[in-house]
C-alpha cells in the first residue's frame, strides 16, 4: 500500500488515477477519523459522495464545513435549531467539486452558524487543536482546519466572514485561503454576513489551495454577488519569480497586540521574502484599529436579518411548548440557539432598530468606506501585503468564552480583508515558544489571487514550514 500520510492533493495526483489507490486513500482517512476523531471532535458526520468523473480533483477526498449544503446530507451549522435538516440541493461549490472528481468524506465541526473564533460554540462540543488538545483550533472553520492538520482528509472547505478560514488555518499549522468577495459562489452556503462571507479551501500546501480555487471559482447565476471576472490558471503562476515585487508591511499590524513569539516568526518570514528579491515598502492602513468594532456592528446586523429564517416553520427545530404563533417563534429560538448566536442576533437587532440605526449601522458603513479607501490607496503602491494572521498562537479551551470582546479581538488582523473584499491567505511560518503553529498572512488587491499564490508559494518553497506536523497519538 502507498504511504498516504500527510500527502497533498498534488502529490497524490498520479497515484489517484488508479481507482484502487483512490479507494485505499478513502479507507486510510476513514481509519484515521475513527481512531483520532473521538479525542479531536473535528468531524461531525462521515459519508461518501463522488460523481466518478475525472477532473482537476480526481479522487481527492474533502471534508465540508457543516454550513455548506450537500444534497441528501444533514446540514446543521452546528446548531440545535437546524438538527435534522436534510439539504434538498447541492451548494454550487459542491457541484463543482463533484464535477472535478473530488470525493466527499463527510462534514466538519464549526462554531454555531460560524459565530466564534475557537470552534467552542458548536452544539456538538468543541473541536480540539491537533497540536495540543488543551487548546482550541481557532474558528469558526475549526473542524475543517483540525481535520486537515490531523490528516483526516486531503483538503477541506470552510467559510470566512471575518477570518474563519485563515485564523484556524494559522492556529492549526495549515494553509487557508479567503478568495476575493465575489470570486466563489455562495449559493448553498448558509448565510451569516452576506456582504462578507466567502467560501475557500483549507489545505496542506499553497499549491493545493490554488488547485482547489481553480476548481470552485467563477460566476454563478444563482449568486448575484458572484462576479463575472475571468478565472486565471492559478497553477501556472506558481514558481514564477517574485523578484522586484513590492511587498507592503502595514505598521498597524505590528503593534503591542502582537505576541513577541509570533512577531519573531513573521519577521523571519519577511526576511525570507527579502532574500527572494522582493522590495519591502513600509505602508499604513490608518483605519485598521476600527476594524473590530466596525465588523462587530456590521456582521451581527447582517446575521440578525439572515437568521430570521430560523423560526420553526420551514425546517429544523420547532418548540413543543408553544400554543400560539409568536410564542412558537420565541420558544423555538430560545431552545434552538446557543449563547453566542443569541448574543449576535440581539446585538444586530439593536444596531438596526429604530433610533439606533444611524448611531451604529450607518456609522459602521461609513467607517467601512474609509477602510475600502485605505486598501485602494495601498494597492496603488504595492503588489501584496504581509502581516500576521492572528495576534497569538492557539489559545486554551475556555480561555475567552466568558469575555466576548477578547474573543472578537483574535480576528483583528483578518477582518479588514472581509470588510474591503480583498483576497487573503494564511501560510504556516513557524511555531510559538509553546510549540504551537504561527501563520503569516498575505493580502492582494481584489481578484488578484494570482499574486497571492505566486508570493505565498515562493515563501512556502523556501521556508518549508508547511511541512511541520502535529505529534498525534
Amino acid at each position: 500500500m502507498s504511504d498516504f500520510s500527510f500527502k497533498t492533493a498534488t502529490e497524490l495526483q498520479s497515484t489517484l488515477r488508479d481507482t484502487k489507490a483512490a479507494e485505499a486513500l478513502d479507507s486510510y482517512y476513514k481509519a484515521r477519523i475513527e481512531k483520532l476523531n473521538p479525542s479531536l471532535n473535528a468531524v461531525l458526520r462521515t459519508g461518501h459522495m463522488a460523481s466518478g468523473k475525472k477532473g482537476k480533483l480526481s479522487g481527492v477526498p474533502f471534508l465540508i464545513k457543516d454550513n455548506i449544503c450537500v444534497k441528501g446530507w444533514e446540514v446543521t451549522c452546528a446548531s440545535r435549531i437546524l438538527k435534522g435538516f436534510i439539504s434538498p440541493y447541492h451548494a454550487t461549490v459542491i457541484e463543482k467539486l463533484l464535477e472535478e472528481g473530488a470525493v466527499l468524506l463527510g462534514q466538519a465541526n464549526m462554531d454555531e452558524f460560524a459565530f466564534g473564533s475557537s470552534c467552542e460554540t458548536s452544539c456538538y462540543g468543541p473541536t480540539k487543536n491537533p497540536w495540543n488538545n488543551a487548546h482550541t483550533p481557532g474558528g469558526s472553520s475549526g473542524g475543517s482546519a483540525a481535520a486537515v492538520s490531523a490528516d483526516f482528509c486531503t483538503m477541506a472547505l470552510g467559510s470566512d466572514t471575518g477570518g474563519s478560514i485563515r485564523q484556524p488555518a494559522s492556529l492549526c499549522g495549515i494553509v487557508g485561503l479567503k478568495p476575493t468577495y465575489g470570486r466563489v459562489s455562495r449559493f448553498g452556503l448558509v448565510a451569516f454576513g452576506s456582504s462578507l462571507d466567502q467560501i475557500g479551501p483549507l489545505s496542506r500546501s499553497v499549491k493545493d489551495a490554488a488547485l482547489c480555487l481553480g476548481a470552485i471559482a467563477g460566476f454563478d447565476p444563482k449568486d448575484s454577488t458572484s462576479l463575472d471576472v475571468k478565472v486565471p490558471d492559478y497553477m501556472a503562476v506558481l514558481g514564477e519569480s517574485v523578484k522586484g515585487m513590492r511587498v507592503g508591511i502595514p505598521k498597524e499590524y505590528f503593534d503591542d497586540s502582537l505576541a513577541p513569539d509570533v512577531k519573531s516568526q513573521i519577521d523571519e518570514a519577511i526576511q525570507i521574502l527579502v532574500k527572494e528579491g522582493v522590495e519591502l515598502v513600509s505602508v499604513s492602513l490608518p483605519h485598521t484599529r476600527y476594524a473590530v468594532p466596525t465588523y462587530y456592528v456590521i456582521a451581527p446586523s447582517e446575521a440578525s436579518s439572515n437568521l430570521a429564517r430560523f423560526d420553526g416553520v420551514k425546517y429544523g427545530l420547532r418548540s413543543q411548548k408553544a400554543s400560539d404563533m409568536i410564542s412558537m417563534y420565541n420558544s423555538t429560538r430560545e431552545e434552538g440557539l446557543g449563547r453566542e448566536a443569541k448574543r449576535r442576533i440581539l446585538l444586530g437587532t439593536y444596531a438596526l432598530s429604530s433610533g439606533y440605526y444611524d448611531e451604529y449601522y450607518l456609522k459602521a458603513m461609513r467607517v467601512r468606506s474609509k477602510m475600502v479607501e485605505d486598501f485602494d490607496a495601498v494597492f496603488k503602491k504595492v503588489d501584496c501585503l504581509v502581516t500576521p494572521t492572528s495576534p497569538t498562537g492557539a489559545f486554551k479551551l475556555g480561555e475567552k468564552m466568558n469575555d466576548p470582546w477578547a474573543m472578537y479581538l483574535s480576528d483583528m488582523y483578518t477582518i479588514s480583508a472581509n470588510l474591503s473584499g480583498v483576497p487573503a491567505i494564511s501560510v504556516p511560518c513557524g511555531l510559538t515558544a509553546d510549540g504551537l503553529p504561527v501563520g503569516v498572512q498575505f493580502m492582494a488587491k481584489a481578484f488578484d489571487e494570482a499574486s497571492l499564490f505566486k508570493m505565498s508559494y515562493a515563501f512556502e518553497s523556501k521556508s518549508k514550514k508547511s511541512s511541520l506536523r502535529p505529534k498525534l497519538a
Partner: protein
Amino acid sequence: MDEAEVKRIAHLARIALSDEEIQGLKKDFADILGHFRTLDKLDLSKTPPVSHPFRLKNVFREDIIKDSLGSERLLENAPAKNRSMFQVPQVIENKS
C-alpha cells in the same frame, strides 16, 4: 442598556430569554457597546456609507422559467405540514 431594553430587543428578535440570560447579556452589551464608542473619534461627515465591498448596482438576468425543487421536496423538512402547506399554530384569535 438596561433590563427593559434587553427585553425590548429580544422581543423584536423573537427570542425568549431566561432572567439569567438577560443579566448576562446586559453586562456583555455594556462592554461591547463601550468598544463601539471608539468609532465616535472619526469625522465621517463627508464619508458615504458602503453596504458592500464593491459598488455593485442592481444585478438583472433574463426572466427564464427553470425547473424548481417543488413544494413536496421542500416540505420534507417541515416540522409540521398539511397537504402542500406549512402548518403553524393558530394565528387568528377565537371569537369569544
